[in-house]
């Protein structure tokens, strides 16, 4: 139990002492040298062992049996591909060098060992780890090895590192799709209607009640009557991102689910940065959603939901119809999906029939493997035709489908829709 003077989170671990690899080599040298000296009756081989024997003579049996350590993370959440720093504080045993190594958990990248030199009663070291894939991950096991002054004995203590929530790396997205009809909320997108924005909309004749500061003097002089400059209203838009987590196909690290989550995280980050109201629907074994909102806290909530929902194929009633509460009228709906689940296709048709503007980002980048036989080749062709038919049918009902390879920026596939406003039509 920690004493009252010790910092919070301090732990006491047993130290298991044993011969170091260096000591084992010295013992080998001594034994081999002495045996050869006796067998060959050559004294120089006994002399050869003298340095090793003298170094082994410094062995001492009494050693500390316990280690006091405190481990903390610099952040409870991380983004895949970024470093997480684990701060390790060692108390006591200040006359011994310590070496920190990490046996990393799955999808965690660990660096080389960190050496903490002797010298202080409280020593702090930082070990950097890198989660390489999103999800809740165990960072691994920290092995603390104390080495005595003469490098003969090693004391080892093992500590389980805490888990970390690793979020997907947001896909790059600099541009955004803006609908032609925007709801009456103040925002940053210039709307078709005139208002108090900053973007020039036109010039019209003055009517009583207009503000005099907007008089356009060149036009007034030219026409002989008072004219005003008008500006476009600035509106926000509701964006709902649908992440299809029902399927996970492809190579590890670049599966369709990886791309869905990275793309959805990129879209959420981009539209929230543009002051839009963003919601999220997770289409998995069950539906989970958060309605559109704004702000940093909302951003965190959306990313937490993305991580909290387990994917899966389980059949659930009503999955072909998305709830009204999750889709405010006039929303722009961006779907990230490999389009392999017929329930999602049905749900998209339904959403489109309800008048929403929908765009699908297709993240399917793999095909079913086939053994090379004629039948499997035929099956592969049928599968491809079916996929093409699904995409064509969506296009026919006014749902554009763009393909994203998961590697390039999302700007590239979305370019035809980000260069001009997306006309919302029913």
């Amino acid at each position: 139990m920690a004493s009252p003077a010790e910092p919070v989170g301090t732990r006491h671990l047993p130290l298991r002492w044993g011969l170091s690899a260096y000591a084992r080599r010295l013992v080998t040298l001594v034994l081999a040298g002495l045996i050869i000296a006796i067998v060959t009756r050559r004294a120089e081989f006994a002399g050869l062992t003298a340095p090793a024997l003298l170094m082994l003579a410094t062995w001492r049996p009494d050693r500390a049996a316990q280690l006091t350590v405190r481990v903390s993370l610099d952040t409870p959440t991380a983004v895949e591909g970024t470093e997480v720093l684990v701060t390790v504080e060692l108390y006591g045993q200040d006359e011994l060098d310590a070496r920190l190594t990490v046996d990393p958990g799955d999808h965690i990248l660990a660096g080389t060992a960190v050496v903490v030199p002797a010298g202080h009663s409280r020593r702090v070291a930082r070990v950097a780890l890198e989660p390489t894939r999103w999800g809740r991950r165990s960072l691994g096991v920290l092995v603390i090895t104390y080495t005595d002054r003469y490098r003969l004995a090693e004391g080892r203590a093992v500590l389980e590192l805490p888990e970390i929530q690793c979020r997907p790396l947001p896909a790059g997205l600099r541009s955004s799709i803006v609908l032609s009809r925007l709801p009456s909320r103040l925002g940053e997108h210039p709307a078709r209607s005139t208002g108090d924005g900053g973007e020039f909309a036109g010039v019209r004749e003055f009517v009583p009640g207009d503000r005099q500061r907007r008089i356009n003097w060149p036009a007034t002089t030219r026409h002989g009557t008072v004219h005003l400059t008008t500006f476009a209203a600035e509106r926000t838009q509701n964006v709902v991102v649908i992440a299809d987590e029902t399927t996970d196909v492809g190579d590890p690290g670049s599966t369709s689910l990886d791309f869905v989550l990275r793309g959805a995280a990129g879209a959420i980050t981009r539209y929230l940065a543009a002051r839009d109201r963003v919601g999220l629907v997770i289409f998995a074994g069950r539906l989970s959603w958060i309605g559109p909102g704004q702000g940093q806290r909302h951003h965190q909530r959306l990313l937490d939901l993305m991580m909290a929902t387990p994917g899966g194929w389980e059949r659930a009633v009503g999955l072909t119809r998305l709830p009204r509460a999750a889709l405010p009228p006039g929303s722009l709906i961006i779907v990230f999906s490999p389009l392999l689940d017929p329930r999602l296709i049905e749900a998209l048709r339904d959403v489109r029939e309800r008048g929403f503007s929908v765009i699908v980002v297709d993240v399917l980048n793999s095909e079913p493997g086939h053994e090379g036989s004629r039948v499997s080749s035929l099956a592969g062709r049928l599968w491809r035709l079916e996929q093409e038919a699904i995409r064509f049918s969506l296009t026919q009902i006014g749902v554009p489908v763009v393909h994203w390879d998961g590697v390039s920026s999302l700007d590239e596939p979305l370019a035809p829709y980000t260069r001009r406003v997306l006309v919302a039509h029913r």
Partner: protein
Amino acid sequence: MKRDGTAQAPARLAPLRRRGLRLAAAATLGAAVIWWAAYPVSGGGGGTRLMLVIAIAAGAMSLAQLAVTATVTRHPDGLTAADRIAAHATGLVMMLPWAELMTVAVLVLEALHSSRPWHTAVLAVALTGYLLAVHLAETDAGASTLRALLPLLSAGLGLTALSVGSAALPDLPAGPVVTLIRIGAVALAAVAAGLAVPVWLGRGQ
């Protein structure tokens, strides 16, 4: 992280250059030890060539072991054939104490040659240096950690010189040279004891 999902070692995590230098030092010393013990190959008894091959193989594997220890650890995302082969190769490299095997092979290689005390003394120095270099390379400890060992190393090398001198004595003709060597041997023994005893007494501090 690359956009294709694979990961790169964080730059801050890997002081690989320093580790590379230590590995190179261990490799150089190991090669020197093997060459010194085997030289001349034709002068050794039966089995010299076989022992040379064993020493070289063990030395190479010990270096591979050090390199594997120094490599940034990464759990594979999947178990492909390449991953399995890499895991088997790593297991093979880490399976045996290659540095110890090389030490024994080198001593046997030296023993296969006829008695040459001063040659053996130089081998003792090189072999001790090799073991220290391997230790530094595998633990990533600084060279300053050797400071505590310096008195012991000095004393040990003095004792080695003493024993080698005594081994060489029968070959020397009687006369003032032998007397000088005896005086030198006593002085070396006194110096060795003077260096080693304080360290041994203070080992608990």
